[in-house]
Every structure is written in structure tokens, then in C-alpha cells.
């Protein structure tokens, strides 16, 4: 910016300041003039609007900036009214004191510019209205009136000045703070009703019989209360002012419900009424706004969090729904949308009809995890939901990884078991070969021994079935077609698993003892369970190394809803060091294998909501598998 530009800017500021200064002075002088005009019998002020103006300007601009305009306004108004020196000083003093005390206190208590919260209104009423009005009337107005000697009762004058000053601040300052907004039809109607009622009541337009007997001064109160709920502050401020002017004009002309034998007393009465009315309305408005603000804050929090937050009535009809819930439920903001029915249409279960307070729904490709709680007053439900698709996907991925690793583990196990399985399979094949050769010879004989031929064919079929059973069991162990969960009979699975080991030949010194409850059925994956059993049996057998006296014990029993399988060996046991790394991957002590067996087995047990643990590290070394039983 060049020098000329800067100069222009400075000039512009100065011009604007000067204009502001002039405008403020003019407004102050007009306010004083207006206040002086509304004097009862030309002596006592009933409404002193300059108090409101001065407090407002000092609060907004600070006393440094406002001292000169306030003094100037005092001098100006005194000159217009041709007051003597004494009165001029008093005028200046009262104007400055009101603005100074009220404005500074507003600043001191850091009242927010919107004059909105209950605290703001409290400070405004006590510190910026009643207090400065009191001080000012004591120092200025009252002194003036006493000096002129027109009123002899000092206390009554002080009260009148204080009320006039208070009314001036109370009615004017809110008007300056809040700008009027275009009225809605309701606020326009309310304003009209209030003005109409005040006109009718205060100007005594009703028959004497009614106006004298009924407390008509309170007729506007319910409408003002409604206005506090439904109208904007700026409109309320104007309405209060208009109402007050009507009331004061009427009362000063001995009309309306406040009329008493003495005009002074009548005025004091109506001013008190007006102050109390204004105070009540502003306090109510502030309380409402506080409430609304808290509500809005809650709403904002609800809308800005990632969870879906919905409040419904006791029947599931939506009362409030956070904005993000619309992302998932398009119609949620429609009038009368019933969330409970919507969930029922997705899950097939009416959430309100069950005691289950947590459930999941699938919306599009996403899974929502819901939780519902009844509010403390039992008048509605709070529903929260969040997107758990990522968690579910991660879980599915982990399960898939486990499946892959487990399959590798099974292949590795199978490789170790292959010799035994091949031997097992070779037996029926050998039998079939020999039976077939015998059959060939029998059929060549003459006469053919038909009974022998038939018997031999039966034996061939039996052996073939045995062979195919072995193949089927082996494939079953690989688990290619095994469902994720099915009822698995442990009492049948354990002997089948033992058959995979070449127990008779490789472990001929090992005694096997089985104690398995009959029809012991678990909810599990057959191939996963068998893999766990293979691992534990293999470990036990290898630990004992077929030493004479070796004993492998397998116990299966039911414990409440669980099925417990214990596999123990009387091998050397597991020392503390090994025990620490027992379930960690790649910690094998065996020559064969990659050390994943127990780690995989534990993961497999957990994937079936079960457990695998080393229940006794010493002899007999015992591993315990705990799975969900299927009740009979």
C-alpha cells in the first residue's frame, strides 16, 4: 500500500470515528430529551432511556472512548433545557455515573455480547441495571429534585428516580443488543394481541364494572410468557417497550388498573409492575435459551460423532436422530418413522419384544452393531449403532488365515502320519488281492464251489469298505468338506483319530486307556477338533517315546454346558522353561514338525469358542480341551 493509500485509510477512519461520535452524542441527547419530556407534572421523570444507552455504549466501547460523549451529551441537553450550572453538573454526573458503573460491571463480569445466558441476564439485571440506577439516582436525579425543592418527600423521589433509571436501562439496552427480526405470523399475532390488550386495559376501554373488579393488569402476562417461548429477543424488547409506554402514558393520565388517588403512587406502582414483568420475561427467556443451548450442544455432539444416535418413544417412533443416521437409514427423519419396526424388518426379530439389548443388522454391505437402553424416565429408548464391517472383515480374514495355517498344519501332520496310514490302507488291499486270487482259483474249479465263492466275494467287499473308510477318514482329517460348525460326537471321533496313528506297531509298548462318556457331542468343526486331538496325541506319544510302561490316557466328560477332553501321558513332563514357550510358534522340541502344533491347536480351540490349556505339566502331563457341548 502506498503513502497516499495509507493517508486515505487514516482519513476514512477519522471520518468514521467523527460520524460515530456525533451519532452517539445525538442519540444520548435525544434520549435525555425524551426522558425529560415524559415527566410527571413537568417535575418527576418516569422513564430515563439515556441510562440504557450509556450503559450499552460504555459496555461496548469502554469508558475512555465514552467519557467525552457522555459529558458532551450532559452539557448539550442542559443547554437545550437552559438548566442552571448546578443542575448541569448534576445532569452530567448522573449520566456519566450510570454508564460508567453499569458498562464497566458488564465488562468486568464478561457478559457475552449476545446477552443470552441466564448468567448474562443476571449480571445485567443486578449489576448493570439496579445498582447503577440506584447510585445515579442517589447522586443525580434525587439531588436535582431535592434542590429544586419541588418534592418534599426525599425517599419517594429517590424511589421514582431509581425506578425511572432502572426502567430506562431495562427497556432500552436489550433493544440495542438484539436486532428485531422479520416476524413470523405467530409473533406478529402475539404482538398484536399484547398491544391490543394493553390498549384496552390501560386506556380503560372496558366498562367500569369489569375494569374495577378484575386484576386486568395481569391479562398480558400469559401472552408475554408465550412470547418468551415463541418470539425473538429483539421483538420481545420492542414489545416490552411499547407495552411500557402505553402503561405509563395511561397511568400518568389517571387511566388503567394502577390508578390510585395520588398520581405519584400510581406511577410507582406501574413502574414496579413493568420492571418485574420485564425482569421475569428476560429471566424466562434466558432460562429457555440456556435449555435450548444445552439441547443444541447435545444435538451437535450427537451429530458430530461417528456413532449413530437415535432417541425414540417407548414404541420405537423416532423423536431425535443424529444426522449421520440418515446415511444408513434414509427415511429416519420422516415423520413417524418407527425404528423398532425397521430393525424387525431386517433381522426378523422385533427388538422391543425381546430382552436382548444388543444386535446387529446388515445395511447394504455394512454391518451395524446396535445397542439400546431405556432412558431413565422409561418414556423412550436410546439407540446407538456403529459400523463394525471393518471388524467383521478383519475377523473373517483372521479366521481365513487360521484356516490356511491350520490346513498346512494338517498336511504336515498327515505327512508324519502317512507311514501309518499307508500301512493301514495296505492291509485291506492285501486282503483283497489274496481273496481275489483265491476267488479266481475257486471259479476255475469244476464243479465251482459256489458257497466258497460267495463267501469270498463278501470278504472282498468288506475289505474294500474298510479301505474306503480309511481313505474317507484321512480326507475327513484334511477337512476339505468339513462345515465350520456341526455337532461332532467326541466318543466316535477319538477312536477314529487314534486309528490314524500306527499305534499297534510303532507304539506297541504304549498302553492306551480311553474313558469317554457315551454320546459326548460338541458344537465344533470336525476337522479342527481332530487336528487338535492329533496334535495332543502325537505330542503325548512322542514324549513317552514308546518306553516300556508308557500310558496314554484320554478322558472325555461333560461339565455343565461344556465338554472336557483330557489327554495325558506319563512321559517326563514339561519343565518350566519349555512351559513358557509352549504355545508360542516355532518352539518345537521334536525332530519332526515345525513347532506350530500347539499354537495352531490353541487358535483352533479359541476359534470354536473353546480353550486349550496345559492343566498339569508334571507326570501325568495333561492337556485339557474345553468345548461347547451340545445338549442331548
Amino acid at each position, binding site marked *: 500500500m502506498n503513502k497516499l493509500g495509507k493517508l486515505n485509510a487514516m482519513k476514512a477512519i477519522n471520518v468514521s470515528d467523527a460520524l460515530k461520535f456525533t451519532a452517539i452524542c445525538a442519540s444520548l441527547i435525544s434520549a435525555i430529551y425524551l426522558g425529560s419530556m415524559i415527566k410527571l407534572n413537568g417535575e418527576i421523570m418516569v422513564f430515563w432511556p439515556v441510562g440504557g444507552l450509556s450503559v450499552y455504549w460504555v459496555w461496548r466501547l469502554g469508558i475512555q472512548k465514552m467519557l467525552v460523549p457522555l459529558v458532551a451529551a450532559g452539557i448539550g441537553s442542559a443547554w437545550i433545557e437552559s438548566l442552571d450550572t448546578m443542575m448541569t453538573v448534576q445532569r452530567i454526573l448522573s449520566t456519566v455515573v450510570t454508564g460508567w458503573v453499569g458498562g464497566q460491571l458488564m465488562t468486568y463480569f464478561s457478559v457475552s455480547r449476545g446477552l443470552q445466558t441466564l448468567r448474562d441476564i443476571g449480571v445485567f439485571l443486578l449489576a448493570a441495571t439496579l445498582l447503577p440506577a440506584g447510585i445515579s439516582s442517589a447522586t443525580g436525579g434525587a439531588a436535582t429534585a431535592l434542590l429544586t425543592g419541588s418534592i418534599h418527600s426525599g425517599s419517594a423521589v429517590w424511589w421514582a428516580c431509581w425506578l425511572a433509571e432502572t426502567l430506562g436501562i431495562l427497556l432500552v439496552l436489550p433493544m440495542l443488543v438484539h436486532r428485531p427480526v422479520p416476524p413470523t405470523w405467530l409473533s406478529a399475532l402475539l404482538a398484536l394481541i399484547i398491544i391490543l390488550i394493553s390498549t384496552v386495559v390501560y386506556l380503560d376501554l372496558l366498562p367500569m364494572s369489569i375494569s374495577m373488579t378484575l386484576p386486568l393488569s395481569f391479562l398480558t402476562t400469559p401472552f408475554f410468557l408465550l412470547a418468551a417461548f415463541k418470539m425473538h429477543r429483539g421483538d420481545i424488547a420492542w414489545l416490552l417497550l411499547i407495552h411500557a409506554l402505553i402503561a405509563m402514558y395511561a397511568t400518568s393520565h389517571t387511566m388503567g388498573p394502577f390508578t390510585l388517588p395520588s398520581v405519584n403512587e400510581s406511577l410507582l406502582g406501574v413502574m414496579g409492575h413493568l420492571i418485574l414483568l420485564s425482569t421475569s420475561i428476560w429471566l424466562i427467556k434466558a432460562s429457555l435459551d440456556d435449555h435450548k443451548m444445552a439441547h443444541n450442544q447435545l444435538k451437535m455432539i450427537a451429530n458430530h460423532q461417528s456413532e449413530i444416535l437415535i432417541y425414540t418413544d417407548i414404541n420405537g417412533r423416532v423423536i431425535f436422530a443424529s444426522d449421520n443416521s440418515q446415511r444408513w437409514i434414509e427415511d429416519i427423519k420422516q415423520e413417524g418413522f418407527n425404528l423398532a419396526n425397521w430393525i424387525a424388518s431386517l433381522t426378523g426379530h422385533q427388538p422391543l419384544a425381546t430382552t436382548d439389548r444388543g444386535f446387529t443388522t446388515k445395511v447394504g454391505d455394512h454391518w451395524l452393531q446396535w445397542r439400546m437402553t431405556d432412558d431413565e424416565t422409561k418414556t423412550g429408548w436410546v439407540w446407538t449403532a456403529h459400523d463394525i464391517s471393518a471388524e467383521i472383515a478383519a475377523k473373517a480374514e483372521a479366521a481365513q488365515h487360521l484356516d490356511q495355517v491350520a490346513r498346512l498344519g494338517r498336511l504336515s501332520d498327515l505327512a508324519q502320519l502317512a507311514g501309518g496310514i499307508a500301512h493301514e490302507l495296505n492291509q485291506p488291499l492285501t*486282503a483283497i488281492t*489274496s481273496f481275489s486270487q483265491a476267488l479266481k*482259483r475257486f471259479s476255475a474249479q469244476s464243479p465251482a464251489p459256489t458257497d466258497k465263492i460267495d463267501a469270498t466275494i463278501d470278504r472282498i467287499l468288506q475289505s474294500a469298505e474298510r479301505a474306503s473308510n480309511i481313505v474317507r477318514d484321512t480326507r475327513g482329517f484334511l477337512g476339505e468338506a468339513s462345515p465350520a460348525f456341526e455337532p461332532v460326537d467326541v466318543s466316535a471321533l477319538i477312536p477314529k483319530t487314534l486309528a490314524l496313528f500306527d499305534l499297534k506297531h510303532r507304539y506297541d509298548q504304549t498302553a492306551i486307556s480311553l474313558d469317554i462318556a457315551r454320546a459326548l457331542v460338541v458344537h465344533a468343526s470336525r476337522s479342527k477338533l481332530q487336528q487338535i486331538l492329533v496334535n495332543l496325541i502325537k505330542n503325548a506319544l512322542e514324549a513317552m517315546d514308546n518306553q516300556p510302561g508308557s500310558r496314554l490316557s484320554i478322558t472325555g466328560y461333560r461339565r455343565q454346558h461344556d465338554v472336557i477332553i483330557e489327554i495325558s501321558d506319563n512321559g517326563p513332563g514339561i519343565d518350566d522353561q519349555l512351559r513358557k514357550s509352549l504355545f508360542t510358534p516355532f518352539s518345537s522340541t521334536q525332530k519332526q514338525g515345525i513347532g506350530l502344533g500347539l499354537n495352531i491347536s490353541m487358535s483352533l480351540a479359541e476359534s470354536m469358542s473353546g480353550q486349550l490349556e496345559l492343566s498339569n505339566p508334571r507326570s501325568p502331563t495333561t492337556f485339557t480341551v474345553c468345548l461347547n457341548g451340545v445338549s442331548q
Partner: protein
Amino acid sequence: MSFPIHIVDDEHDIREAVSLLLESMQYQVYAHASGNDFLNHCQPTDLGLVLLDIRMPEVSGLRVQDIMIQQGYIQPIIFMSGHADIPVAVETVKKGALDFLEKPFKDLDLFACIERGFEKISSQARELGDRAALEHNLAKLTAREQEVMMAIAEGLPNKLIARKFDISPRTIEIHRARVFQKMEVENAQQLIRALMRFDKFTPSSQSHL
């Protein structure tokens, strides 16, 4: 010529199948479910053939072979083995088993093995007969005649034999004639061969009697 065949296998199906096959060929078959079963049933000198499974619980086929060697069983052994046990089976042959068959085996291979076994048994039987005859003949000799026989086997002339035992050569002549007669030989060469066949005599060493 046929001999009893003993099948030793812990697998019921295989015992049945092989028995049936052999019976279809009119062999005389005995099935045993374990090594001990066989050893209890069969004496070391019984003539016969053993079809022995290598892998059996408690007493394995190898162990049965060892016991048979220890106790002087004469039955030839044909081992039955799975593919994985072939190296073991080869060892059994080195230790004197007749042969081994890999399961499942062809019937003709089995029969061929059995026939070879039978031939071996036949020659064993002949040998046993000859040995029995020799023992029988030896038993007929007097003590003096036995001494004279060993001297003859040593190749000593009558004169030296007479001096060794301090009797007349004439008497030695009589003993020699009696020995030849009782041992059913015609000359010293035949006598030496008969004795050497059953280890009754080793040249340039002491008598085993």
C-alpha cells in the same frame, strides 16, 4: 511234496485271505495271530514253512526270527512286508530268511516262494534222515571201534594204529572191518565223507566225538 504252512499275521483279514488262497491250492495251512502263538504251537524240529508278517504288536516278525534262530528252528521263513519295510526285509534275508514278499503280493510269486521253501525243507528232511542214520550207525560202535574209526579217518596205517593203542595189527584189521560194516561204508574215503558231512570229523583236527 507238501509241508504245513504257518501264517503269522496280526491282521485277521490277511490271515483269512492268504489262508483261503493257499487252501484253494490244497496246501495245509495253519494261521497264527501272533509270534508267540506260532512259537507255542510249533516245535523247532517240525517240518514246515512260515509266512511271517514283519510288523506285529508286542512280538514283531524280526523278533520271531531271532527267537527261531536262537532255538534252532529249522523252518524256512518267508517274510511279508509293507513297502516301507523293504530295507528291514532285506536284512532278514541276510540273517537267513528264505525270501520276502511285498504286500500286496501276486499269488504266483507266493507259490513260487512256497515251492522253493518246500525244496529246502525236502533237502533238510533228507539231511535229517542221513544224519539220523549216521547217528544210528555210530551208536552201534563199541568204544574201541570208535577210537579205531577216528584213527582211520586221520589216515593212519594199521601198523601205527596198532602201536597207538598197543594192540596187535591183526586185531586192528578186525576192528576196521567191523567199523566199515557198522558204518555201512566200503572204504576209508566213504567213511571220512560221511563223518565230515555232519561235522563228526574235521581233517587235521581233533575228533568231535
